[in-house]
């Protein structure tokens, strides 16, 4: 097992819903509600889920931009203190982020060189001349030319701007890059260029990635390990190959079956599990399993008790009373619908 870079334990991020007299909280949105997540050195970890599942909030908590309600995050064994400026400053050298939309992520009034040099200046790295040289190196690293430093963002296409954003994120030699939907805003013909670049950079610089995405085809291509998130909870986690080949949680299964394959013949022969309804509001989550309102396999126990993450095989865990029963507790309901029987994957 390789060395752990980041360890998150029982992380919770709750947002107050203000209202009532004097703006007191009248309720809580449980954006992230008890998440354990590890990232090893050089590993690509993908966080998948639909809008509102808490994946971006979780990314923000790792960056130090969002203070957790409870739980811990440690980086290289040292805990991150979200209240302490010094701790966050040290963290920002090691953890950087690439956002979805490169157009809004770059200041249009700064030259590309100024944007890339900004983190260096903030952290007092080198003098002006050294910084300029570093900017040139970084631009070459992402497939642009040092001469591009003098231009402003509007001189570049979307794909090139995303390269610039990546160069800026790499300026301080971070160990972990958070990639929040890094190709979703790009033209389809440009996406593969950026994905190839990110894979290449990872090998050359031995980077770890936290890849936040709703695009499962991209995640399949990119990730070593996958965390499937639903309504603030981890529904399933495991090696990417295992999760994609044998999804355990009915949500993972539905999510995978919902992605249309770019292959009409294969697509006609697939059985799509169409989930009923929408994601429940995170301010009023179901009492038991978060997925119970849409789950085709739901049992009485699912409405009452939140399922814990249970190992279903080596390094593959799922939180489901039916498919991944805890020894003892849910054994009876597991027998009602054994995984792989007729009900398995039946469209509703």
């Amino acid at each position, binding site marked *: 097992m390789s060395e752990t870079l980041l360890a998150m334990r029982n992380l919770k991020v709750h947002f107050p819903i203000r209202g009532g007299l004097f703006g007191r909280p009248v309720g809580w949105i449980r954006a992230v509600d008890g998440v354990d997540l590890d990232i090893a050195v050089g590993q690509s970890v993908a966080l998948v889920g639909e809008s509102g599942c808490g994946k971006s909030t979780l990314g923000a908590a790792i960056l130090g931009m969002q203070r957790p309600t409870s739980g811990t995050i440690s980086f290289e064994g040292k805990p991150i203190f979200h209240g302490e400026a010094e701790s966050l400053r040290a963290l920002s050298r090691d953890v950087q982020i690439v956002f979805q939309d490169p157009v809004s992520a770059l200041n249009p009034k700064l030259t590309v060189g100024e944007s890339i040099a900004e983190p260096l200046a903030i952290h007092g790295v080198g003098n002006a001349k050294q910084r300029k040289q570093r900017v040139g190196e970084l631009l070459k690293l992402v497939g642009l030319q040092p001469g591009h430093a003098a231009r402003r963002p509007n001189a570049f296409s979307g794909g090139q701007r995303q390269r610039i954003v990546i160069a800026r994120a790499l300026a301080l030699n971070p160990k972990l890059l958070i990639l929040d939907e890094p190709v979703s805003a790009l033209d389809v013909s440009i996406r593969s*260029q950026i994905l190839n670049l990110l894979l290449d950079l990872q090998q050359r610089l031995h980077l770890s990635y936290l890849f936040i995405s709703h695009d499962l085809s991209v995640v399949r291509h*990119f990730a070593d390990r996958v965390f499937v998130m639903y309504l603030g909870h981890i529904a399933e986690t495991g090696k990417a190959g295992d999760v994609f080949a044998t999804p355990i949680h009915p949500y993972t299964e539905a999510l995978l079956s*919902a992605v249309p394959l770019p292959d*009409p013949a294969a697509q006609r022969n697939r059985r799509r599990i*169409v989930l009923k309804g929408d994601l429940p509001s995170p301010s009023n989550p179901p009492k038991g399993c978060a997925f119970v309102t849409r789950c085709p396999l739901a049992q009485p126990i699912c409405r009452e008790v939140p399922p814990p993450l249970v190992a279903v095989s080596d390094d593959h865990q799922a939180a489901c009373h039916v498919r991944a029963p805890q020894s003892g507790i849910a054994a009876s309901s597991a027998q009602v619908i054994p995984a792989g029987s007729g009900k398995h994957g039946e469209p509703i």
Partner: protein
Amino acid sequence: MSRNVLTVEDLKVTIHGQPVVDGVGFHVAEGEILSVVGESGCGKSMTAFAVMGLLPAVARLESGSIRLGDVDLTTLAEKKRRKLRGDDIAMIFQEPVASLNPLMKVGRQIEESLIVHRNLDSAETRRVAIAMLEEVGIPEPALRFEQYPFELSGGMCQRAMIAMALICRPKLLIADEPTTALDVTIQAQILELMKRLRDTTGTTILLITHDMGVVADMADRVAVMYAGRIIEEAPVDAIFTRQEHPYARLLLSTIPRLDGTPKTVLPTIEGTVPDIGEWPAGCRFNPRCPLADRQCVERHPPLAPRADAGAAACWHSDKVGAML
């Protein structure tokens, strides 16, 4: 062969004199789903707006014909055209939440087409609208009828839009990126709904998208657009099996796939999509094309029949198969 509901010929649209749609022609048969695929700026949405007669004020329809059945829409008086819009042709848009009027109850927005196009009494209008909401799979339709768009989720708003579009049983439904703004499980619901409606009502659908997965799932026939032109057009199985235009071939090969080999280097298309007004001479894909030669720079290739079915616009279509 069933008759064509929509026939577009040599359509040209300009914005401030710059062409955005440049000689596009296609037809859609009754009950067929034609998917128009392409990247941003290729002119696919402008083509849809031209058919709908909703081009933005800066855009100009320069030439070409758009026929709905036997009626040429381009020469029709605006008053008559308005009669068709929402009745015979309807459209659903990418952003369901932004496309609904936030100040008007959902039910009232769905009734609007009925009030304009059908002469029903108010009780009957309401009954038909609620039945439509139920048909598109909105639970508690009578309750939703009385609600405002903000009280509905994104998927529900898209269903309401579809209900609005289909209320007068149009012959042609134009869907412009109908699921792009939605999550994948909600996308699955909406795609199933559109297919079911096509199967039960025989609605013809012009589906505009950039997602090859959605195309493979939905389309009977596909037209690929690049820089204002259709560069390849064929039945869905044919075009996914074999492409005769390098752009279509590369576009399909660059997409990471659920059933692909992870972590491999993906094929790329060099360069970027040219901006409107900066389209190169000759074949517009030539600066990015690995097969380009002098002929491609000098002369624009016409759409020529493919070996099987459909057509492609490439001087070197016989070499495309061996490209990768």
